């Protein structure tokens, strides 16, 4: 999967490239609107990450010309200006999604994956990780053959983490997915709930599956 990052902030471009490369994407970076547009038209990309404020051609113009040239490549907009009309304008011009700076890298990754349809497509029935088994249909969780007694929200939280095994999920994303809290709420609440979940899923067992990534969120993996 090839991603073009058009972003003039050297540091932003650098960490995007690094992070996305490590997540398995091939990343090209351009720090200039015209160059970026040229690259986007010359080469085949699966996704373009586009900053609005870039030299020579701004993000709006790059997007407009790209669409005029008939390219349907998905575009994820980045901007420091979070006005509703700007957001609407970007979407009207044909952007597919929009992120406001400052953003969490895990958020970028989540958006990229969802735009590239790499999120799990077919609903799994059973997720297995080490000795943990989650039956999504029957809403049953067992570990080492023992049935775990989880509340509905705890089950949702565990399923979310398990379905994105290996991905760091931010507290905001978790709060939104599990409790439908679509804003930066008091994210300590997520910590409390994860702690409770751990006390049932991890604490009684030697191998820990749910890990905290300080400052970023939580990840579930069995390494």
């Amino acid at each position, binding site marked *: 999967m090839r991603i073009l990052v058009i972003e003039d902030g050297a540091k932003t471009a650098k960490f995007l490239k690094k992070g996305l490369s490590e997540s398995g994407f091939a990343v090209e970076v351009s720090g200039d609107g015209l160059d970026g547009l040229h690259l986007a038209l010359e080469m085949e990309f699966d996704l373009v990450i586009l900053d609005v404020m870039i030299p020579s051609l701004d993000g709006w113009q790059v997007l407009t010309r790209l669409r005029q040239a008939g390219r349907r490549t998905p575009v994820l907009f980045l901007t420091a200006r979070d006005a509703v009309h700007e957001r609407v304008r970007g979407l009207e011009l044909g952007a597919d999604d929009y*992120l406001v700076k*400052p953003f969490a890298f895990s958020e970028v990754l989540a958006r990229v994956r969802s735009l590239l349809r790499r999120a799990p497509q077919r609903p799994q029935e059973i997720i297995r990780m080490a000795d943990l088994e989650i039956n999504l249909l029957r809403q049953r969780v067992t570990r080492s053959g023992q049935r775990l007694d989880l509340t509905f929200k705890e089950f949702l939280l565990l399923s979310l983490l398990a379905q994105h095994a290996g991905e760091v999920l931010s507290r905001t994303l978790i709060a939104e997915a599990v409790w439908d809290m679509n804003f*930066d*709420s008091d994210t300590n609440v997520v910590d409390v709930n994860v702690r409770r979940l751990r006390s049932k899923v991890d604490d009684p067992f030697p191998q820990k599956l749910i890990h905290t990534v300080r*400052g970023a969120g939580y990840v579930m993996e069995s390494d």
Partner: protein
Amino acid sequence: MSWNLTSSVAPVSRLWRTLAFRLTAGYALAGLFLVFLATASLYLLTVAEMERSTRLFIEDKLHVLRTMLRERPGDGDALREEVELESAARRYEQFYIRLLDEQNEPLLTTPGMAEQLDLEQLATQTGIRPGRTVRMKGRHGRAFRVTTATAPVGSPPTQTDTIQIAIDVSQQEEFLQRYRLWFFSILLGTFVALPLIGYQIARRGIRPVEDMAATARRISSTNLRERILPDGYPFELASLAGTFNQMLDRLEDSFERISRFSADIAHDLRTPVNNIRGEAEVGLARARTITEYREVLESCLEEAVRLSDLIGDLLFLARAESPLAHVRRESVNIVELLDGMREYYEASAAEAGVLLTTSANRAPVIAPLDRRLVQRAVSNLVSNAVAHTPPGGSVVLAASSEDSAVHIEVSDTGVGIPSEALAKVFDRFFRLDSSRSQAAGGTGLGLAIVQSIMLLHGGKVEIASQLGQGTRVTLHMPIAEQGHAAAVPNHHMTKT
């Protein structure tokens, strides 16, 4: 009072714009008009009175002569005395009489009459209209009133004589001339004095306004302390001064809030930035183990997240204030929303030993609201309530509705808020206890955000608290304008 104020009289037109000039002109014109009216009417009255007394005098003389001619036509001595002596003895308002018989031959004449008057002219002028008093100039330029009348002689009359009377009114004329001189002097004096006096009065009247203007000029963002002292001003201006002072109070208050706000922003931004900088600097000062580097990076990330949350909140507040801000209303069941909120906070509340419940009233409360915004507002309230309620306490969420508004109530049995702090809790960065709130991760913007969300909904937020007893916050939102919100495109692709 409209005269031409075109460009040809530019200085006047410029002057006309000053209040003092307008008032002065008004006073002066009104004064002049009244003085003119008074003196002119007095003059006309005097003239009329003089004419009348002259006429009465003449009529009186005629009456005497006619009576004498009718009753005692033969008494020549009495007539002579009446005609020749009495008149000649007068010094003031001298009069002359000539008595003519039927053949127009003079019978008696006051001495000097022919010398003073052209008798031919007299006869022709008065002959046209007998019995009427007529003006006439004498030989020496003196002014006379003359008249001619017939007088039957004897009873019954045997013949008809003619009486000609002339009265010298030159002294009256002189008096009137002096009067006119006076009149014009007074008008001239008034013309000079009134504008001066008027200008003084106008200036005195306007001075408080100028004082106010001067005060207003001295006021700037750095000097908002200045006030107009309303003492000694007339009532109308004192009230203006009062209003002006109140405006300054509000401005000063706003400025103080803004500058405090800026200082708070600087402080709250500086702390995480400082931590990031310091930790990175110390971390890089010498070679460290991987674990140590990881520790530094993680801590930096935490600070960065704090920073970015703070920026997010500040942006939210700034956007809520912008006139472009809008509310995406959809039909929201508030009871369900509160249930969701309870589920979300249940674990934290349980951990804090606080009982979090929704009110027993389960009747659905449905209103067109911006779900995300209301969620955010309630979340801030619940988060505060749980954080400030000691173990064993409880937090209750309740919703109610009436015809035109919905209400959401979050009440706790927590520590409460001192009454003097109650008014400030909605201020940005206001913290009751800064150390604890900081530790709890609060930005001090939670209630400010609640308030702006309510303002966006056209509603308001009320807070009541008793120290040691608990706090109750109520959100009131009117549910009038629905159609207005429906037109807004509902792009729900982004999460802030």
